[in-house]
């Protein structure tokens, strides 16, 4: 018999509290995997929206066919003289067809449709006065509407980063709830073994020796339960439909690259939480009991 297994045997098997610890760690980690996936996906989304849409705007010109060309030129002229605009460019019919293809198919007779002309605007770092530009446009090209994205981009990017925050907050809460449950379970095990602890103290066991028997047990139980939860959660995430080209939010909920390893850090974390919680509980109980 090794010294270590002998040391663990001085405390009888912990039964229900130990089982509760494994189960709690497993269930909590399962949830944490999804919270982690959510946080990472929201983070990616927030970044993409913030950076890709940053500094771009669109001007849409809807006008009778014979006026489109004229108004387009007028708008481009205005843009060329507006401070804070880096560049602007009218989209070619080809580009417009590409834009619409996912919705209407490749054989769209573009010329037969009363489509608005789109102009891409790229803003300089210092930015432009969007109200002033809108006024000039309505005066000189009545069919032009400035869509500066920020109207919908900002709340979306904000929502995404808020979602990321919520994801991380969930992981924290899950960790705290797990710590509380394991503390409770450890306290139950310690109280159930009050007699054992008393005998151990009487024969000269140090607190750290007695605590170690409990801490080791609960740490291992939590880490093992958590490993099962992490595996199950990761499989769950992997079974979600693959991320499509459009990068829609729900389909983008997987992990990417090395991110797939992150869920497997959770058992280490759970073990650490269990270690700290049980140790704290053990030393408190030992001082109370003997």
């Amino acid at each position: 018999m090794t010294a270590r297994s002998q040391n663990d045997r001085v405390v009888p098997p912990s039964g229900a509290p130990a089982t509760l610890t494994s189960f709690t760690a497993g269930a909590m980690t399962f949830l944490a995997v999804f919270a982690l996936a959510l946080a990472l996906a929201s983070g990616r989304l927030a970044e993409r929206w913030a950076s890709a849409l940053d500094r771009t705007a669109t001007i849409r010109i809807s006008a009778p066919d014979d006026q489109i060309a004229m108004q387009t030129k007028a708008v481009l002229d205005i843009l060329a003289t507006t401070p804070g605009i880096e560049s602007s460019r009218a989209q070619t019919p080809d580009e417009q067809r590409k834009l619409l293809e996912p919705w209407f198919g490749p054989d769209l007779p573009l010329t037969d449709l009363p489509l608005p002309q789109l102009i891409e605007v790229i803003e300089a770092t210092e930015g432009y006065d969007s109200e002033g530009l809108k006024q000039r446009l309505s005066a000189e090209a009545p069919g032009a509407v400035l869509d500066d994205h920020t109207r919908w981009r900002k709340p979306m990017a904000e929502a995404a980063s808020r979602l990321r925050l919520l994801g991380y907050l969930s992981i924290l809460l899950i960790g705290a709830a797990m710590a509380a449950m394991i503390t409770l379970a450890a306290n139950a095990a310690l109280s159930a073994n009050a007699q054992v602890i008393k005998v151990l103290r009487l024969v000269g066991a140090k607190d750290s020796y007695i605590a170690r028997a409990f801490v080791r047990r609960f740490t291992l139980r939590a880490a093992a339960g958590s490993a099962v939860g992490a595996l199950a959660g990761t499989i769950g995430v992997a079974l979600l439909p693959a991320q499509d080209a459009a990068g829609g939010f729900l389909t983008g909920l997987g992990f990417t690259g090395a991110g797939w390893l992150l869920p497997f850090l959770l058992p280490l974390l759970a073990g650490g939480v269990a270690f700290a919680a049980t140790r704290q509980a053990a030393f408190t109980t030992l001082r109370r009991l003997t």
Partner: protein
Amino acid sequence: MLPQIRATGVAFTVISFENAAYSYGGGELLSDISLRLAPGSFHFLTGPSGSGKSTFLKLCYAELAPTAGSLTLFDRDVRSLSRDDVALTRRRIGVVHQDCQFLDHLPLAANVALPLTVAGRTSAPSDLSDLLGWVGLGQLAEAKPPSLSGGERQRAALARAIIMGPDVILADEPTGNLDWEMSLRLLTLLVELNRMGKTILVATHDLNLIRQAKPQLAARVLRISKRRIQLAGADL
């Protein structure tokens, strides 16, 4: 030969009470105790049931602390001992408790070896079985404590108390559940241990045992009466 430092040096005491008292919610149980147990001494402690014999022993192994006065164990004030110090002190004091508690989930042999286990030491299996054989429990090494008789538990407790080779042995009614023959055997062991230099304190109300011991060694008899501990006369 190496010089006997302790014999020639400053007076060394194992257990020393000075004007110590112990009281609890119900009042003062032990008052004004001044007592020194010198290394190698042998004491009996007698007194009526409920007079505080077990309480006195608990003070001696730092389970309780005096509520007044001072108590030093191995020349250290018990109040200055940390929890770890208490644990280390108990490794030098073998105790046979009156209620003989064991770890019920471990076999007898593991229970007897427990002081070694918690101290991070291992026992030679032959030493352990010799010891169990000596207290007459060789056949019961694998038995679980709840299945043992009262006398078997007391013998096991004695084996556990001496396995560490402690400097001091405190025994609380160690013959309470033993027949006369086994009591004598236990007394012989205690006498032997005392000859090896161990300090021994036995709480007992078995006056026959004390009489039996007297011719074998220079034992002193302490008696608790009216909350005080006095040296008993030769009237036993």
